[in-house]
């Protein structure tokens, strides 16, 4: 049981380049999330998904796109990277509100991806 994994762990991009971050979970969680962590700002939600084939915007969605084609995977895309997107990106997953699991169930986080845009 690997939990939540993220690929890659580190990446350096030039302004204007594109890339995709992959998140995978093996816990059969319905909900998945992408956060970014910046100094002094905590973690902020970029996009999230409440099920396969569905996505929604979070607090800071501009410049990012996401897809959830399979329940276990959640992809975060940067079409044209900008220096302001230099950050540490975290993926997380959890059970849904209708899963029968206790409310306030824990979000399980991946190890993060450190992205630098030059």
């Amino acid at each position, binding site marked *: 049981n690997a939990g939540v994994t993220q690929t890659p762990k580190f990446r350096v991009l030039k302004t204007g380049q594109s890339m995709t971050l992959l998140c995978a979970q093996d816990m059969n969680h319905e909900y998945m999330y992408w956060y970014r962590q910046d100094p002094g700002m905590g973690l902020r939600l970029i996009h999230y998904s409440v099920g396969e084939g569905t996505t929604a915007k979070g607090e800071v969605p501009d410049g990012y796109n996401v897809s959830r084609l399979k329940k276990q995977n959640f992809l975060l895309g940067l079409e044209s990277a900008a220096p302001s997107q230099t950050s540490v990106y975290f993926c997380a997953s959890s059970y849904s*509100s209708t899963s029968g699991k206790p409310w306030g169930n824990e979000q399980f986080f991946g190890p993060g991806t450190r992205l630098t845009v030059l």
Partner: protein
Amino acid sequence: AQTVTQSQPEMSVQEAETVTLSCTYDTSENNYYLFWYKQPPSRQMILVIRQEAYKQQNATENRFSVNFQKAAKSFSLKISDSQLGDTAMYFCAFMKYGSSNTGKLIFGQGTTLQVKP
């Protein structure tokens, strides 16, 4: 909109002593959850403790306990008998409660705690 504020960017404590990290939040919701997450230097986010707003009793997990003051919208974390392994950044987080809940977390800015030997 909900906001979470951690006003202590950095704190330090001697090993074996007790330290309290502060967190305040703003919401118009009556039912919600509050969390403390720990992020050690490894960067891995780890759930420390959670509190349901409808419960009067403060949550405890071994050396970790909270002081939840709903009227004051305050949610502090107390770490007793601090250990070197407690050195980490700690995040306070808020989650709405309800059938339409999507599990989104609102995080505070974080408090970096250093435990000194």
